[in-house]
């Protein structure tokens, strides 16, 4: 699809710039400027020792001290390691919602599809607090799932996955996937719905079966969405959120579960270390943007056009 588009538009004529379009976009850009860019002045808090309530200029000037502190902070390094693992796993698993959408698309019965489609989004609405308490009743030492696992593995003593350091990564990944799979697949279902039906017909005329239709028509149509989302997600590499990890953090899992976002939350709220928190989030923003730029360049190398 992407290819056919470039053929029709690009090389033949350079489109004349339409300033009309600029005027249509600008009002919206002003809103973006007002609500997304003006607040960036808050970054200034990172060079002061900000005490909430005190006018910023009366706070002690710290220069780049907080930024230097980040480099020396052993917690940041450990949190980064955990973030890399969690984010790495979730990046590897990004095709899951797409696969789920394809499988769902193969189901031709309308009501069944609707049912599955609606009800698999439900976990997305269950807050992490509740997920924790559900997980506790299932996976605590005398929980139902723990006895099942104990039987399967043949372990002598029941061991709860909640208090096992070794299981942190896969267990948390499992929960996160469970929560988001159905919800994240919505976008791919939309992409599938956007496929021109003529393409399927054309493929069928060529003698393609169901699988070849899926492979040659459905997958390429979704790839564009997938690649775009993938690149955006790469930028969110460090933004894992903190809620899940905060709730499942306990004395045993703590060293493996504290991600950067959780650490920032902790220093901001518990230590009231507002300025340091801002400094970390600035660095995070810079890293995010750098990652997106790199991903975009790689995409250009591979596909010939940039995504963003």
């Amino acid at each position: 699809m992407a290819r056919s588009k470039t053929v029709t538009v690009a090389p033949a004529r350079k489109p004349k710039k339409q300033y009309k379009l600029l005027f249509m976009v600008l009002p919206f850009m002003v809103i973006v400027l007002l609500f997304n860019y003006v607040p960036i002045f808050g970054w200034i808090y990172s060079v002061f020792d900000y005490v909430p309530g005190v006018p910023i200029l009366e706070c002690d000037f710290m220069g780049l001290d907080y930024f230097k502190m980040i480099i020396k902070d052993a917690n940041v390094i450990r949190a980064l390691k955990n973030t890399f693992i969690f984010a790495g796993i979730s990046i590897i698993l990004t095709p899951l919602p797409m696969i789920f959408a394809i499988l769902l698309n193969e189901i031709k019965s309308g009501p069944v599809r609707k049912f599955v489609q609606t009800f698999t989004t439900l976990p997305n609405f269950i807050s992490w607090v509740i997920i924790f308490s559900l997980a506790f009743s299932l996976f605590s030492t005398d929980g139902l799932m723990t006895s099942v696992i104990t039987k399967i593995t043949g372990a002598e003593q029941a061991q709860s996955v909640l208090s096992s350091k070794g299981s942190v990564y896969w267990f948390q990944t499992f929960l996160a996937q469970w929560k988001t799979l159905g919800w994240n697949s919505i976008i791919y279902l939309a992409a599938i719905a956007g496929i021109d039906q003529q393409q399927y017909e054309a493929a069928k005329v060529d003698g393609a079966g169901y699988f070849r239709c899926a492979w040659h028509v459905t997958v390429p149509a979704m790839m564009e969405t997938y690649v775009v989302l993938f690149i955006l997600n790469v930028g969110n590499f460090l933004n894992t959120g903190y809620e899940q990890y905060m709730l499942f953090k306990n004395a045993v899992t703590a060293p493996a579960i504290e991600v950067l976002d959780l650490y920032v939350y902790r220093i901001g709220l518990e230590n009231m270390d507002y300025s340091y928190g801002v400094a970390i989030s600035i660095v995070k923003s810079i890293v995010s943007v750098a990652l997106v730029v790199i991903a975009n360049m790689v995409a250009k190398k591979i596909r010939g056009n940039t995504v963003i």
Partner: protein
Amino acid sequence: MKKKNKIQTSTSRKVFMVCDYALLFLITLVCIYPFWYIIIYTFSEGSQVDVNPPVFLPRGFTLSNYKDIFELNGFFHAVLISVLRTVIGTVASVLSCSFLGYLFTKEEMPFRKFLYRFLILTMYISGGMIASYIVMKSYGLLNNFWVYILPMMISAYNIVLIKTFVEQLPASLEESARLDGAGYLTVFTKLILPLSKPIIATVAVFVAVGQWNSWFDNHIYTRGNEALTTLQYLLYNYLNEAQRLADQIKNTTNAAGMSQLVSNSISPKGIRMTITVLASLPIFMVYPFMQKYFVKGIMVGAVKG
């Protein structure tokens, strides 16, 4: 996928379909049961659930969890505000995002790349809560209904989704419309919008759910005006009250104060479960309705004719 070069037999298709159904059934079950558990929990008698959690049906039957919430001060007003912000917020956001998504596909737009990147950048930077608060205050948006709508109206993420979708539409359609003399606005309303129903429905669901369930903006920008309390914030406060009572005991180091606080009547857990049910309402109300835009693929021929 490995089989792609073999000729498809109906048996392999059947095997695949059986596996597909089985897998989806399993996933659906794993998704439904916890939710079912939450629902029956909210209908169970509070005194019984802790001792004996429900399995398939509620333990006892009571509506008290819901009754307590319906009886909260200003419940119906809060529902009204929530519905208003959801409806207005969704319409405003979907319209502007889809319009922008379309415009950004136009290569003839001056500074297109720059503006698009300017937009994307907003996904990764933020000035922090205090700065946002001061900014909203200076715009006069504190304790103002529009603070629910304007800051969330233009979402880079949704625009990217829409743009990607529009780019996939056959370019020939728009070209022929343009040759017929249609302007950008006409093309957008007459051609792009109808053809983009699946993605617009998706974005609408995203925005609506986000609006319905957000309470944080209420918490920081409109705390001062009770008339703007949304349902989720009302529930958040209610839950907090229960939670706070539970925590307060621990934060009290004073002996006499401690004994005063021991008995707390409402359990945060029951409230939390009930809130979950209320939070997922829009998905039940809106999503099945939206799904009709997902099921049918577009018929380019039909649009042309």
